[in-house]
Protein backbone atom coordinates (compact mmCIF):
# COMPACT_ATOMS: atom_id res chain seq x y z
CA UNK A 1 0.00 0.00 0.00
CA UNK A 2 1.25 3.44 -0.98
CA UNK A 3 1.65 6.28 1.48
CA UNK A 4 3.16 9.76 1.11
CA UNK A 5 3.24 12.95 3.13
CA UNK A 6 1.95 15.98 1.25
CA UNK A 7 2.04 19.64 2.24
CA UNK A 8 -1.35 20.98 3.35
CA UNK A 9 -2.38 23.83 1.03
CA UNK A 10 -5.88 24.47 2.39
CA UNK A 11 -6.91 22.85 5.64
CA UNK A 12 -10.05 20.78 5.57
CA UNK A 13 -11.73 17.60 6.69
CA UNK A 14 -10.09 14.22 6.08
CA UNK A 15 -11.48 12.55 2.99
CA UNK A 16 -11.34 9.17 1.33
CA UNK A 17 -12.60 7.68 -1.87
CA UNK A 18 -11.52 6.06 -5.10
CA UNK A 19 -8.54 7.85 -6.65
CA UNK A 20 -9.14 9.81 -9.86
CA UNK A 21 -5.71 10.51 -11.32
CA UNK A 22 -5.89 12.99 -14.22
CA UNK A 23 -3.39 12.48 -17.03
CA UNK A 24 -3.54 16.13 -18.15
CA UNK A 25 -4.14 19.53 -16.54
CA UNK A 26 -7.77 20.66 -16.51
CA UNK A 27 -9.65 23.95 -16.56
CA UNK A 28 -12.48 23.69 -14.00
CA UNK A 29 -14.41 26.47 -15.78
CA UNK A 30 -15.74 24.83 -18.92
CA UNK A 31 -14.00 21.55 -18.03
CA UNK A 32 -16.05 20.36 -15.05
CA UNK A 33 -19.85 20.58 -14.85
CA UNK A 34 -20.57 22.68 -11.73
CA UNK A 35 -23.88 20.91 -11.13
CA UNK A 36 -22.78 17.27 -11.45
CA UNK A 37 -18.98 17.14 -11.14
CA UNK A 38 -18.74 15.39 -14.49
CA UNK A 39 -15.63 16.11 -16.58
CA UNK A 40 -17.19 17.95 -19.52
CA UNK A 41 -14.08 18.81 -21.55
CA UNK A 42 -14.36 16.47 -24.55
CA UNK A 43 -10.64 16.81 -25.28
CA UNK A 44 -9.60 15.70 -21.77
CA UNK A 45 -8.42 12.06 -21.41
CA UNK A 46 -10.69 11.59 -18.36
CA UNK A 47 -13.75 13.03 -20.14
CA UNK A 48 -16.84 11.27 -18.79
CA UNK A 49 -15.38 10.60 -15.32
CA UNK A 50 -16.85 12.39 -12.30
CA UNK A 51 -14.88 14.19 -9.57
CA UNK A 52 -17.60 13.89 -6.89
CA UNK A 53 -16.47 11.83 -3.90
CA UNK A 54 -13.14 10.97 -5.52
CA UNK A 55 -9.65 11.78 -4.27
CA UNK A 56 -8.73 14.00 -7.21
CA UNK A 57 -5.07 14.04 -8.30
CA UNK A 58 -4.35 17.12 -10.45
CA UNK A 59 -1.11 17.28 -12.47
CA UNK A 60 -1.88 20.95 -13.15
CA UNK A 61 -4.67 23.45 -13.73
CA UNK A 62 -5.22 25.82 -16.64
CA UNK A 63 -7.58 28.48 -17.76
CA UNK A 64 -10.25 30.70 -16.40
CA UNK A 65 -10.37 32.81 -13.30
CA UNK A 66 -13.85 31.40 -12.63
CA UNK A 67 -12.43 27.99 -11.61
CA UNK A 68 -12.97 29.00 -7.99
CA UNK A 69 -16.68 29.61 -8.64
CA UNK A 70 -17.06 26.12 -10.13
CA UNK A 71 -15.34 24.46 -7.17
CA UNK A 72 -17.44 26.45 -4.69
CA UNK A 73 -20.60 25.40 -6.52
CA UNK A 74 -19.48 21.73 -6.35
CA UNK A 75 -18.85 21.99 -2.60
CA UNK A 76 -22.24 23.54 -1.94
CA UNK A 77 -24.03 20.98 -4.10
CA UNK A 78 -22.29 18.03 -2.41
CA UNK A 79 -20.46 17.14 -5.65
CA UNK A 80 -16.91 18.15 -4.65
CA UNK A 81 -13.96 15.75 -4.62
CA UNK A 82 -13.38 13.97 -1.26
CA UNK A 83 -9.90 15.52 -1.26
CA UNK A 84 -7.66 17.35 -3.75
CA UNK A 85 -4.04 16.39 -4.32
CA UNK A 86 -2.20 18.76 -6.63
CA UNK A 87 1.29 19.07 -8.08
CA UNK A 88 1.51 22.80 -7.41
CA UNK A 89 -0.76 25.28 -5.66
CA UNK A 90 -3.25 27.19 -7.80
CA UNK A 91 -4.52 30.18 -5.88
CA UNK A 92 -7.54 30.63 -8.16
CA UNK A 93 -8.90 27.08 -7.88
CA UNK A 94 -8.17 26.78 -4.16
CA UNK A 95 -9.96 30.07 -3.52
CA UNK A 96 -13.13 27.99 -4.00
CA UNK A 97 -12.19 25.97 -0.90
CA UNK A 98 -11.14 29.02 1.10
CA UNK A 99 -14.50 30.68 0.41
CA UNK A 100 -16.40 27.45 1.14
CA UNK A 101 -14.76 27.27 4.55
CA UNK A 102 -15.71 30.90 5.22
CA UNK A 103 -19.30 30.08 4.24
CA UNK A 104 -19.33 27.24 6.77
CA UNK A 105 -19.77 24.58 4.10
CA UNK A 106 -17.74 21.41 4.80
CA UNK A 107 -14.84 21.57 2.35
CA UNK A 108 -12.28 18.93 1.50
CA UNK A 109 -8.59 19.21 2.35
CA UNK A 110 -6.15 20.15 -0.44
CA UNK A 111 -2.53 19.00 -0.34
CA UNK A 112 0.52 19.36 -2.54
CA UNK A 113 2.25 16.21 -3.75
CA UNK A 114 4.68 15.89 -6.66
CA UNK A 115 2.89 14.59 -9.76
CA UNK A 116 5.49 11.81 -10.15
CA UNK A 117 3.86 10.20 -7.11
CA UNK A 118 0.27 10.45 -8.40
CA UNK A 119 0.15 7.40 -10.68
CA UNK A 120 0.96 5.00 -7.83
CA UNK A 121 -2.44 5.77 -6.27
CA UNK A 122 -4.49 5.01 -9.39
CA UNK A 123 -6.95 2.15 -8.91
CA UNK A 124 -6.92 2.44 -5.10
CA UNK A 125 -9.22 3.70 -2.39
CA UNK A 126 -7.21 6.61 -1.00
CA UNK A 127 -7.49 8.51 2.28
CA UNK A 128 -6.11 12.03 2.78
CA UNK A 129 -5.61 13.11 6.39
CA UNK A 130 -5.75 16.68 7.76
CA UNK A 131 -1.96 16.51 8.33
CA UNK A 132 -1.36 15.92 4.59
CA UNK A 133 -0.81 12.17 4.67
CA UNK A 134 -2.01 10.51 1.47
CA UNK A 135 -2.39 6.72 1.80
CA UNK A 136 -4.07 3.99 -0.19
CA UNK A 137 -6.36 1.76 1.84
CA UNK A 138 -7.38 -0.93 -0.63
CA UNK A 139 -7.69 -1.65 -4.30
CA UNK A 140 -10.73 -0.09 -5.90
CA UNK A 141 -12.88 -2.34 -8.02
CA UNK A 142 -15.01 -0.10 -10.25
CA UNK A 143 -18.69 -0.90 -9.93
CA UNK A 144 -18.16 -3.09 -6.86
Amino acid at each position, binding site marked *: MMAARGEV*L*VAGAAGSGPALVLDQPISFW*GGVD*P*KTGGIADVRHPQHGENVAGRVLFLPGTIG*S*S*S*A*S*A*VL*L*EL*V*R*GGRAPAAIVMHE*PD*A*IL*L*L*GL*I*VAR*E*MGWPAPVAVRLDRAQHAGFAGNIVAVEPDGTVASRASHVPGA
Partner: protein
Amino acid sequence: MALDLTDEERAVAAGRDGEGAAMAMRILAESARLLGATELIPVRSAHIDGALYHGDSGTLFAERLVAGGAKVAVRATLNVGALDLTGSCRVRLEGAERDMARRMMRAYRELGCEPSWTCAPYQAGHRPEKGTDVAWGESNAVVFCNSVLGARTNRYGDFLDIACAIAGRAPDTGLHRVENRRARVVFDVSALPAPFLSSEIAWPVLGSLFGREIGSAVGVVTGITGHPGEDALKAFGAAAASTGAVGLFHIAGVTPEAPDLEAALGGQPAVATVAVTPAMALDAQRRLSTAERADRIDAVAIGSPHLSPRELDALERLVAGRRLAVPLFACTGRHALDAFGPDRRAALERAGVVIVADTCVVVTPIMAEVAGGVLMTNSGKFAQYAPGNTGYAVLYASLADCVESAVTGRPVLRELAA
Protein backbone atom coordinates in the same frame (compact mmCIF):
# COMPACT_ATOMS: atom_id res chain seq x y z
CA MET B 1 9.28 33.98 3.72
CA ALA B 2 5.80 33.76 5.20
CA LEU B 3 3.05 36.33 4.77
CA ASP B 4 3.40 39.14 7.28
CA LEU B 5 0.17 40.99 8.08
CA THR B 6 0.23 44.38 9.78
CA ASP B 7 -1.46 44.88 13.17
CA GLU B 8 -4.21 46.77 11.35
CA GLU B 9 -4.81 43.89 8.91
CA ARG B 10 -4.85 41.37 11.75
CA ALA B 11 -7.41 43.42 13.63
CA VAL B 12 -9.68 43.59 10.57
CA ALA B 13 -9.34 39.82 10.03
CA ALA B 14 -10.29 39.29 13.68
CA GLY B 15 -13.55 41.19 13.21
CA ARG B 16 -12.81 44.75 14.38
CA ASP B 17 -14.71 46.25 11.41
CA GLY B 18 -17.45 43.62 11.27
CA GLU B 19 -17.77 40.08 10.00
CA GLY B 20 -17.99 41.01 6.29
CA ALA B 21 -14.72 42.95 6.35
CA ALA B 22 -13.15 40.13 8.40
CA MET B 23 -14.18 37.51 5.87
CA ALA B 24 -12.76 39.56 2.99
CA MET B 25 -9.44 40.06 4.81
CA ARG B 26 -9.13 36.37 5.68
CA ILE B 27 -9.84 35.32 2.06
CA LEU B 28 -7.27 37.84 0.85
CA ALA B 29 -4.64 36.69 3.37
CA GLU B 30 -5.12 33.00 2.51
CA SER B 31 -4.81 33.77 -1.20
CA ALA B 32 -1.71 35.89 -0.62
CA ARG B 33 -0.15 32.99 1.28
CA LEU B 34 -0.87 30.58 -1.60
CA LEU B 35 0.59 33.09 -4.08
CA GLY B 36 3.77 33.31 -2.03
CA ALA B 37 3.36 37.03 -1.25
CA THR B 38 5.06 38.32 1.89
CA GLU B 39 2.81 41.33 2.35
CA LEU B 40 -0.32 43.11 1.18
CA ILE B 41 -0.16 46.47 -0.57
CA PRO B 42 -2.84 49.20 -0.76
CA VAL B 43 -4.86 49.41 -3.98
CA ARG B 44 -6.56 52.54 -5.33
CA SER B 45 -9.47 50.94 -7.18
CA ALA B 46 -11.06 47.68 -8.23
CA HIS B 47 -13.02 46.30 -11.17
CA ILE B 48 -15.23 43.40 -10.14
CA ASP B 49 -15.90 40.45 -12.45
CA GLY B 50 -17.57 38.36 -9.73
CA ALA B 51 -21.17 39.51 -10.26
CA LEU B 52 -21.76 37.23 -13.25
CA TYR B 53 -24.00 34.35 -12.20
CA HIS B 54 -22.40 30.88 -12.44
CA GLY B 55 -24.54 29.20 -9.76
CA ASP B 56 -26.31 29.93 -6.47
CA SER B 57 -23.17 29.65 -4.32
CA GLY B 58 -21.76 32.90 -5.74
CA THR B 59 -24.98 34.73 -4.91
CA LEU B 60 -24.96 33.38 -1.35
CA PHE B 61 -21.31 34.45 -0.94
CA ALA B 62 -22.09 38.04 -1.99
CA GLU B 63 -25.16 38.15 0.26
CA ARG B 64 -23.05 36.89 3.20
CA LEU B 65 -20.69 39.84 2.71
CA VAL B 66 -23.69 42.20 2.62
CA ALA B 67 -25.15 40.66 5.78
CA GLY B 68 -21.76 41.11 7.48
CA GLY B 69 -21.88 44.84 6.78
CA ALA B 70 -19.03 44.85 4.25
CA LYS B 71 -18.48 47.85 1.97
CA VAL B 72 -15.84 48.43 -0.66
CA ALA B 73 -12.99 50.61 0.60
CA VAL B 74 -12.02 51.90 -2.83
CA ARG B 75 -13.77 52.79 -6.06
CA ALA B 76 -15.12 49.55 -7.54
CA THR B 77 -16.79 49.32 -10.95
CA LEU B 78 -18.79 46.25 -11.97
CA ASN B 79 -18.19 44.07 -14.99
CA VAL B 80 -21.13 42.57 -16.89
CA GLY B 81 -23.86 40.64 -15.11
CA ALA B 82 -26.09 37.88 -16.48
CA LEU B 83 -29.10 40.17 -17.03
CA ASP B 84 -29.76 43.38 -18.97
CA LEU B 85 -31.17 45.54 -16.18
CA THR B 86 -31.88 48.38 -18.62
CA GLY B 87 -34.45 46.23 -20.39
CA SER B 88 -32.80 46.79 -23.78
CA CYS B 89 -32.95 43.10 -24.64
CA ARG B 90 -34.52 39.94 -23.29
CA VAL B 91 -32.20 37.42 -21.59
CA ARG B 92 -33.54 33.84 -21.74
CA LEU B 93 -32.69 33.00 -18.12
CA GLU B 94 -35.83 31.87 -16.30
CA GLY B 95 -37.32 31.10 -12.88
CA ALA B 96 -34.99 30.50 -9.95
CA GLU B 97 -31.83 31.15 -11.99
CA ARG B 98 -33.11 34.54 -13.12
CA ASP B 99 -34.00 35.39 -9.53
CA MET B 100 -30.57 34.35 -8.20
CA ALA B 101 -28.77 36.25 -10.99
CA ARG B 102 -30.76 39.38 -10.10
CA ARG B 103 -30.07 38.91 -6.36
CA MET B 104 -26.37 38.59 -7.13
CA MET B 105 -26.28 41.85 -9.10
CA ARG B 106 -28.21 43.58 -6.28
CA ALA B 107 -25.81 42.27 -3.59
CA TYR B 108 -22.76 43.70 -5.36
CA ARG B 109 -24.52 47.08 -5.56
CA GLU B 110 -25.21 46.91 -1.82
CA LEU B 111 -21.49 46.35 -1.21
CA GLY B 112 -20.96 49.78 -2.72
CA CYS B 113 -19.91 48.84 -6.24
CA GLU B 114 -20.86 51.17 -9.10
CA PRO B 115 -23.52 49.87 -11.53
CA SER B 116 -21.24 50.36 -14.53
CA TRP B 117 -21.99 46.80 -15.80
CA THR B 118 -19.36 46.96 -18.48
CA CYS B 119 -16.25 45.06 -19.53
CA ALA B 120 -14.77 48.37 -20.76
CA PRO B 121 -14.70 50.37 -17.49
CA TYR B 122 -11.64 52.22 -18.83
CA GLN B 123 -13.95 53.88 -21.40
CA ALA B 124 -16.61 54.56 -18.77
CA GLY B 125 -14.51 56.99 -16.74
CA HIS B 126 -12.54 54.50 -14.62
CA ARG B 127 -8.92 55.21 -15.55
CA PRO B 128 -6.38 54.71 -12.78
CA GLU B 129 -3.17 56.70 -13.08
CA LYS B 130 0.04 55.24 -14.44
CA GLY B 131 2.06 53.47 -11.76
CA THR B 132 -0.79 53.04 -9.26
CA ASP B 133 -1.70 49.62 -7.86
CA VAL B 134 -5.27 48.43 -8.46
CA ALA B 135 -7.15 45.11 -8.25
CA TRP B 136 -9.01 44.43 -11.48
CA GLY B 137 -10.81 41.39 -12.83
CA GLU B 138 -12.01 40.54 -16.39
CA SER B 139 -9.15 39.57 -18.69
CA ASN B 140 -9.56 42.37 -21.27
CA ALA B 141 -9.91 45.03 -18.57
CA VAL B 142 -6.81 43.70 -16.78
CA VAL B 143 -4.71 43.80 -19.92
CA PHE B 144 -5.93 47.30 -20.90
CA CYS B 145 -5.35 48.64 -17.39
CA ASN B 146 -1.78 47.33 -17.27
CA SER B 147 -0.80 47.96 -20.88
CA VAL B 148 -2.59 51.10 -22.06
CA LEU B 149 -3.08 52.93 -18.75
CA GLY B 150 0.14 51.73 -17.12
CA ALA B 151 -1.59 51.03 -13.80
CA ARG B 152 -0.62 47.77 -12.09
CA THR B 153 -2.85 44.77 -11.51
CA ASN B 154 -2.79 40.99 -11.62
CA ARG B 155 -5.68 38.96 -13.02
CA TYR B 156 -8.09 38.92 -10.06
CA GLY B 157 -10.76 36.27 -10.41
CA ASP B 158 -14.10 35.60 -8.74
CA PHE B 159 -14.19 36.20 -4.94
CA LEU B 160 -10.66 37.65 -4.74
CA ASP B 161 -11.65 40.77 -6.70
CA ILE B 162 -14.32 41.80 -4.19
CA ALA B 163 -12.16 40.73 -1.23
CA CYS B 164 -9.43 43.12 -2.45
CA ALA B 165 -11.98 45.90 -2.96
CA ILE B 166 -13.36 45.53 0.59
CA ALA B 167 -9.90 45.24 2.18
CA GLY B 168 -8.47 47.95 -0.09
CA ARG B 169 -5.42 45.73 -0.48
CA ALA B 170 -3.91 43.10 -2.75
CA PRO B 171 -1.06 40.55 -2.50
CA ASP B 172 2.30 42.10 -3.38
CA THR B 173 3.19 39.80 -6.25
CA GLY B 174 3.24 39.43 -10.04
CA LEU B 175 2.58 42.54 -12.13
CA HIS B 176 2.42 44.80 -9.06
CA ARG B 177 6.21 44.44 -8.97
CA VAL B 178 8.20 46.56 -11.45
CA GLU B 179 10.73 43.80 -12.17
CA ASN B 180 7.95 41.59 -13.58
CA ARG B 181 6.64 44.23 -15.99
CA ARG B 182 9.49 44.45 -18.49
CA ALA B 183 9.09 42.63 -21.81
CA ARG B 184 10.94 39.34 -22.34
CA VAL B 185 9.71 38.58 -25.87
CA VAL B 186 9.70 40.80 -28.99
CA PHE B 187 6.75 40.48 -31.40
CA ASP B 188 7.99 42.10 -34.62
CA VAL B 189 5.29 43.05 -37.16
CA SER B 190 7.53 45.21 -39.40
CA ALA B 191 7.34 42.67 -42.24
CA LEU B 192 3.56 43.13 -42.59
CA PRO B 193 2.25 45.41 -45.36
CA ALA B 194 1.28 48.93 -44.27
CA PRO B 195 -2.30 48.70 -45.67
CA PHE B 196 -2.96 45.68 -43.46
CA LEU B 197 -1.44 47.30 -40.37
CA SER B 198 -3.66 50.35 -40.83
CA SER B 199 -6.83 48.26 -41.26
CA GLU B 200 -9.32 47.62 -38.46
CA ILE B 201 -8.91 43.83 -38.61
CA ALA B 202 -5.16 44.00 -38.01
CA TRP B 203 -5.60 44.47 -34.25
CA PRO B 204 -7.90 41.59 -33.31
CA VAL B 205 -6.02 39.29 -35.72
CA LEU B 206 -2.58 40.23 -34.37
CA GLY B 207 -3.91 40.09 -30.80
CA SER B 208 -5.06 36.51 -31.17
CA LEU B 209 -1.69 35.57 -32.70
CA PHE B 210 0.16 37.43 -29.93
CA GLY B 211 -1.76 35.55 -27.22
CA ARG B 212 -1.01 32.17 -28.78
CA GLU B 213 2.68 32.96 -29.33
CA ILE B 214 3.42 34.75 -26.06
CA GLY B 215 1.20 32.83 -23.59
CA SER B 216 1.67 34.24 -20.09
CA ALA B 217 4.94 36.10 -20.79
CA VAL B 218 5.22 39.88 -21.20
CA GLY B 219 5.81 40.81 -24.84
CA VAL B 220 6.55 44.02 -26.76
CA VAL B 221 5.19 44.71 -30.25
CA THR B 222 7.58 46.49 -32.56
CA GLY B 223 7.08 47.74 -36.12
CA ILE B 224 4.04 49.94 -35.44
CA THR B 225 4.27 53.54 -36.62
CA GLY B 226 1.89 55.91 -34.90
CA HIS B 227 -0.79 55.39 -32.27
CA PRO B 228 -3.55 53.17 -33.70
CA GLY B 229 -6.23 54.56 -31.36
CA GLU B 230 -7.61 53.29 -28.11
CA ASP B 231 -10.31 51.05 -29.64
CA ALA B 232 -7.62 49.23 -31.62
CA LEU B 233 -5.57 48.59 -28.47
CA LYS B 234 -8.75 47.44 -26.72
CA ALA B 235 -9.41 44.91 -29.49
CA PHE B 236 -5.77 43.74 -29.50
CA GLY B 237 -5.65 43.16 -25.74
CA ALA B 238 -9.03 41.40 -25.59
CA ALA B 239 -8.04 39.02 -28.37
CA ALA B 240 -4.62 38.38 -26.80
CA ALA B 241 -6.16 37.66 -23.40
CA SER B 242 -8.60 35.16 -24.93
CA THR B 243 -5.97 33.01 -26.69
CA GLY B 244 -3.25 33.32 -24.02
CA ALA B 245 -2.89 34.26 -20.36
CA VAL B 246 -1.68 37.74 -21.34
CA GLY B 247 -1.88 40.30 -18.52
CA LEU B 248 0.41 43.00 -19.93
CA PHE B 249 1.72 43.89 -23.38
CA HIS B 250 3.83 46.79 -24.60
CA ILE B 251 3.87 48.47 -28.02
CA ALA B 252 7.12 50.27 -28.68
CA GLY B 253 6.48 53.98 -29.21
CA VAL B 254 2.79 53.69 -28.25
CA THR B 255 2.08 52.36 -24.72
CA PRO B 256 3.21 54.25 -21.60
CA GLU B 257 5.90 51.86 -20.36
CA ALA B 258 7.42 51.48 -23.83
CA PRO B 259 8.69 54.84 -25.12
CA ASP B 260 10.97 52.66 -27.26
CA LEU B 261 11.95 49.01 -27.65
CA GLU B 262 14.94 49.22 -25.34
CA ALA B 263 12.91 50.79 -22.53
CA ALA B 264 10.22 48.09 -22.85
CA LEU B 265 12.91 45.42 -22.51
CA GLY B 266 14.35 47.17 -19.46
CA GLY B 267 17.70 47.51 -21.17
CA GLN B 268 18.16 43.75 -21.32
CA PRO B 269 18.27 41.43 -24.33
CA ALA B 270 15.04 39.73 -25.41
CA VAL B 271 14.66 36.07 -24.49
CA ALA B 272 12.97 35.40 -27.85
CA THR B 273 11.75 37.23 -30.96
CA VAL B 274 8.65 36.33 -32.95
CA ALA B 275 9.09 37.64 -36.51
CA VAL B 276 5.51 37.84 -37.80
CA THR B 277 5.14 37.03 -41.50
CA PRO B 278 2.15 37.81 -43.78
CA ALA B 279 1.42 34.06 -43.85
CA MET B 280 1.23 33.96 -40.04
CA ALA B 281 -1.19 36.91 -40.00
CA LEU B 282 -3.38 35.29 -42.67
CA ASP B 283 -3.39 32.01 -40.74
CA ALA B 284 -4.33 33.84 -37.52
CA GLN B 285 -7.24 35.49 -39.34
CA ARG B 286 -8.44 32.15 -40.73
CA ARG B 287 -8.30 30.57 -37.28
CA LEU B 288 -10.75 33.16 -35.95
CA SER B 289 -13.43 31.65 -38.19
CA THR B 290 -14.90 28.19 -37.64
CA ALA B 291 -17.42 28.36 -40.52
CA GLU B 292 -15.34 29.49 -43.49
CA ARG B 293 -17.68 28.16 -46.20
CA ALA B 294 -21.05 29.39 -44.94
CA ASP B 295 -23.40 30.74 -47.63
CA ARG B 296 -25.64 32.55 -45.14
CA ILE B 297 -25.44 34.05 -41.66
CA ASP B 298 -28.02 33.97 -38.86
CA ALA B 299 -26.81 36.89 -36.78
CA VAL B 300 -24.00 39.42 -36.26
CA ALA B 301 -22.55 40.23 -32.83
CA ILE B 302 -20.21 43.12 -32.09
CA GLY B 303 -19.02 44.74 -28.87
CA SER B 304 -16.57 42.47 -27.06
CA PRO B 305 -15.22 44.45 -25.33
CA HIS B 306 -18.27 46.74 -25.11
CA LEU B 307 -18.58 49.30 -27.91
CA SER B 308 -17.30 52.80 -27.22
CA PRO B 309 -19.33 55.86 -28.28
CA ARG B 310 -16.96 56.15 -31.25
CA GLU B 311 -17.65 52.56 -32.29
CA LEU B 312 -21.42 53.22 -32.06
CA ASP B 313 -20.85 56.23 -34.38
CA ALA B 314 -19.08 53.93 -36.85
CA LEU B 315 -21.93 51.42 -36.71
CA GLU B 316 -24.47 54.17 -37.40
CA ARG B 317 -22.43 55.43 -40.38
CA LEU B 318 -22.16 51.94 -41.89
CA VAL B 319 -25.84 51.01 -41.38
CA ALA B 320 -26.71 54.33 -43.07
CA GLY B 321 -30.43 54.01 -42.49
CA ARG B 322 -30.75 50.65 -44.22
CA ARG B 323 -32.86 47.75 -42.94
CA LEU B 324 -30.95 44.68 -41.72
CA ALA B 325 -31.93 41.19 -42.92
CA VAL B 326 -30.59 39.43 -39.79
CA PRO B 327 -30.26 40.78 -36.23
CA LEU B 328 -27.07 42.64 -35.34
CA PHE B 329 -26.41 42.41 -31.57
CA ALA B 330 -24.51 45.51 -30.42
CA CYS B 331 -23.14 44.93 -26.91
CA THR B 332 -22.28 48.06 -25.00
CA GLY B 333 -22.56 49.85 -21.69
CA ARG B 334 -24.76 52.54 -20.23
CA HIS B 335 -21.87 55.03 -20.55
CA ALA B 336 -21.76 54.65 -24.33
CA LEU B 337 -25.55 54.67 -24.77
CA ASP B 338 -25.86 57.86 -22.71
CA ALA B 339 -23.27 59.54 -24.91
CA PHE B 340 -24.89 58.22 -28.10
CA GLY B 341 -28.34 59.53 -27.24
CA PRO B 342 -31.85 58.01 -27.32
CA ASP B 343 -32.93 59.22 -30.78
CA ARG B 344 -29.95 57.81 -32.63
CA ARG B 345 -30.29 54.60 -30.66
CA ALA B 346 -33.97 54.30 -31.62
CA ALA B 347 -33.03 54.73 -35.28
CA LEU B 348 -30.51 51.89 -35.04
CA GLU B 349 -33.13 49.67 -33.36
CA ARG B 350 -35.64 50.42 -36.13
CA ALA B 351 -33.03 49.22 -38.62
CA GLY B 352 -32.77 45.88 -36.84
CA VAL B 353 -29.89 46.45 -34.41
CA VAL B 354 -30.50 44.77 -31.02
CA ILE B 355 -28.86 46.85 -28.29
CA VAL B 356 -27.49 44.67 -25.46
CA ALA B 357 -26.55 46.62 -22.33
CA ASP B 358 -25.09 45.51 -18.95
CA THR B 359 -24.20 42.06 -20.35
CA CYS B 360 -23.22 40.37 -23.62
CA VAL B 361 -24.22 37.56 -25.94
CA VAL B 362 -21.51 35.05 -24.95
CA VAL B 363 -22.01 35.11 -21.16
CA THR B 364 -25.78 34.65 -20.98
CA PRO B 365 -28.47 33.26 -23.34
CA ILE B 366 -29.68 36.10 -25.58
CA MET B 367 -29.38 34.95 -29.20
CA ALA B 368 -31.99 32.52 -30.53
CA GLU B 369 -31.04 28.85 -30.44
CA VAL B 370 -30.37 27.97 -34.08
CA ALA B 371 -29.16 24.48 -34.99
CA GLY B 372 -26.06 24.95 -37.15
CA GLY B 373 -26.32 28.72 -36.70
CA VAL B 374 -23.63 30.99 -38.13
CA LEU B 375 -22.57 34.16 -36.33
CA MET B 376 -20.45 36.89 -37.88
CA THR B 377 -18.30 39.12 -35.66
CA ASN B 378 -15.46 41.63 -35.83
CA SER B 379 -14.35 40.76 -32.29
CA GLY B 380 -11.42 38.41 -31.77
CA LYS B 381 -12.77 37.63 -28.30
CA PHE B 382 -16.28 36.78 -29.51
CA ALA B 383 -14.69 34.65 -32.25
CA GLN B 384 -12.81 32.71 -29.56
CA TYR B 385 -15.70 32.13 -27.14
CA ALA B 386 -18.91 32.10 -29.24
CA PRO B 387 -18.61 28.52 -30.60
CA GLY B 388 -18.27 26.98 -27.10
CA ASN B 389 -20.69 29.28 -25.28
CA THR B 390 -23.47 29.80 -27.84
CA GLY B 391 -23.28 26.84 -30.22
CA TYR B 392 -22.97 29.18 -33.22
CA ALA B 393 -20.16 28.69 -35.72
CA VAL B 394 -18.24 31.91 -36.29
CA LEU B 395 -17.24 33.94 -39.33
CA TYR B 396 -14.71 36.66 -38.57
CA ALA B 397 -14.87 39.93 -40.56
CA SER B 398 -14.32 43.68 -40.33
CA LEU B 399 -17.09 45.89 -38.95
CA ALA B 400 -17.90 47.15 -42.47
CA ASP B 401 -18.25 43.56 -43.73
CA CYS B 402 -20.31 42.61 -40.66
CA VAL B 403 -22.80 45.39 -41.42
CA GLU B 404 -22.97 44.58 -45.16
CA SER B 405 -23.57 40.93 -44.28
CA ALA B 406 -26.33 41.85 -41.84
CA VAL B 407 -28.00 43.90 -44.60
CA THR B 408 -27.88 41.06 -47.16
CA GLY B 409 -28.09 38.04 -44.80
CA ARG B 410 -25.15 36.51 -46.65
CA PRO B 411 -21.45 36.72 -45.79
CA VAL B 412 -19.70 39.62 -47.47
CA LEU B 413 -15.94 39.24 -46.98
CA ARG B 414 -13.90 41.98 -48.57
CA GLU B 415 -11.01 42.45 -46.16
CA LEU B 416 -8.35 39.78 -45.99
CA ALA B 417 -5.18 39.88 -43.94
CA ALA B 418 -1.78 40.75 -45.33
